[in-house]
């Protein structure tokens, strides 16, 4: 009894910081237009490789400098956030819906359905994910939609595995038998009794998945397989910045820091949610 009382929930600082950063991230994504000081696509060869605002030779209005074509780094990063956010949300939810549905069915109905789904997941997961993504985009063509499709096709297995395991654990609980004795159909029991109890885990994995989607998108842009290189993406900026690292380090470093912080925030939030919903700690 006393041990139970000992567990007090505190929201750690890093969680607040993560939520704060993600708020900024999504705000940038939504209000990319009004927030950007410059047009992210406007090239101006007179202003190429301007340093960030604190260095000598900086120009007002170009806070984080410009790249080798004279495009404003800050504005491109803000617009890059929009693409990252679209990928995170659409790909994350897409993978979540497919994986969760299959996971629930496999974990609850078991038997041959489970056998088939589990085998597919096993085979799916034995491909190296990033290579698979590159191959897939190369086949179906570049573009935002292709990136999202690739991420969904690869990452639904993550949801499927976790949801299946949790559904199996929940199905062993007496309340599932209790619902059947009450006369509820199997399908109703799954969606009204089991699903709400699996939902917390799904939310936690979804958050983690969004961070992963952002990384995958950046990798695909880096190897030029995402959307057209004119459109600003973090991965594309890192890729371009790499070429002028000795002349203009800022073109590379700022998008990298942003990418790092965003993924870290998603991961932190996902871990915290997972911990909070862990049945052992609950």
């Amino acid at each position: 009894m006393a041990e139970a009382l000992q567990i007090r929930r505190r929201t750690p600082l890093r969680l607040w910081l993560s939520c704060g950063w993600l708020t900024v991230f999504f705000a940038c994504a939504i209000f990319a237009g009004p927030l950007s000081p410059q047009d992210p696509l406007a090239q101006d060869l007179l202003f190429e490789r301007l340093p960030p605002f604190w260095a000598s030779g900086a120009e007002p209005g170009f806070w984080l400098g410009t790249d080798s074509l004279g495009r404003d780094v800050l504005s491109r990063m803000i617009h890059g956030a929009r693409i990252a956010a679209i990928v995170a949300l659409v790909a994350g939810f897409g993978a979540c819906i497919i994986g969760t549905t299959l996971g629930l069915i496999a974990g609850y109905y078991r038997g041959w359905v489970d056998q088939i789904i589990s085998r597919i997941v096993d085979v799916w997961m034995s491909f190296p994910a990033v290579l698979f993504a590159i191959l897939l985009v190369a086949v179906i063509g570049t573009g935002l939609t292709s990136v999202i499709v690739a991420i969904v096709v690869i990452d639904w297995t993550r949801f499927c595995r976790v949801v299946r395991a949790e559904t199996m654990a929940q199905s062993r609980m007496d309340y599932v038998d209790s619902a059947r004795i009450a006369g509820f159909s199997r399908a109703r029991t799954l969606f009204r009794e089991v699903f709400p109890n699996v939902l917390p885990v799904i939310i936690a994995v979804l958050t983690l998945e969004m961070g992963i989607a952002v990384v995958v998108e950046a990798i695909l842009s880096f190897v030029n397989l995402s959307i057209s290189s004119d459109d600003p993406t973090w991965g594309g900026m890192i890729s371009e910045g790499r070429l002028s690292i000795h002349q203009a380090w800022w073109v590379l470093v700022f998008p990298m820091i942003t990418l790092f912080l965003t993924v870290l925030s998603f991961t932190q939030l996902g871990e915290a949610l997972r911990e909070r919903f862990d049945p052992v700690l609950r």
Partner: protein
Amino acid sequence: MSFLTIQDLDVRLRGSGQRLLRGVSLEVAQGQVHGLVGESGAGKSMIGKAILDVLPRSVEIAGGRITLGETDLTALPAKARRHELGQRTALIPQDPLTALNPARRIGGQITDRLTRVLGWGAARADARAVELLDEVQISDPARVMKSYPHELSGGMRQRVLIAAAFAAEPELIIADEPTTALDVTVQKQILKMIAAMQAAHNTTMLFVTHDLGVVARVCQRVSVLFAGHVVEDADIHTLLSVPGHPYSQALLSATPRYDDPRASLRPVPQSVIDATRAEAEAHDV
């Protein structure tokens, strides 16, 4: 002359100050088995934890003394107390499943105390462990020493834990519901084993249980607890035949018994619960 003495032990929740033990006093003579009975939340396990200095961090000792032989444990600095306890006490835990580390072989888990606390050599400790496993009637002790916990049945694991508890010849053993997780037929064997080992080693024992039937098997004296307060402290014959406190009486009538079904499983009257609670809370000033 008592061996283990607890005087006015007061244990509270840190922060809220909620009382978990309210001035508990008891005396256990050397070589005796003393039972602590009560329902969940009565604080019976808390007493054992306070003695062994393993209270949860959310809980603190707010007052009272615990004396073991001539040593006042509560007066010792933490490190010296740990040393003293390591040398002189041992625990038989409730759940044989979680009390043994699943990743380590049985042998090492028995000899830990001997090699770490008493500084014995490995060969001597191993020989002693085999001897102990033999004493708790485990056939083929050498093989069991090399086994992992999951390879043993619940009853076997509990025997291993008993062997481990007696290994370093402690002066005091605290048994915390050691048979609650077991089937009745296994429970019978384990209780007999504990009683035999205790008698052979002349160990003083504090036996925590919720089951008056179990108390009757192993204990000479019993303290009945309610809301962290000792409502009655009597020898086992008196408690079971003419319990002095209304709560003890009610607890006895609530206990199911096949030999007298009509007189058992009687709900504890609310008036008794209220009166006993008032009595316990009268201690809080």
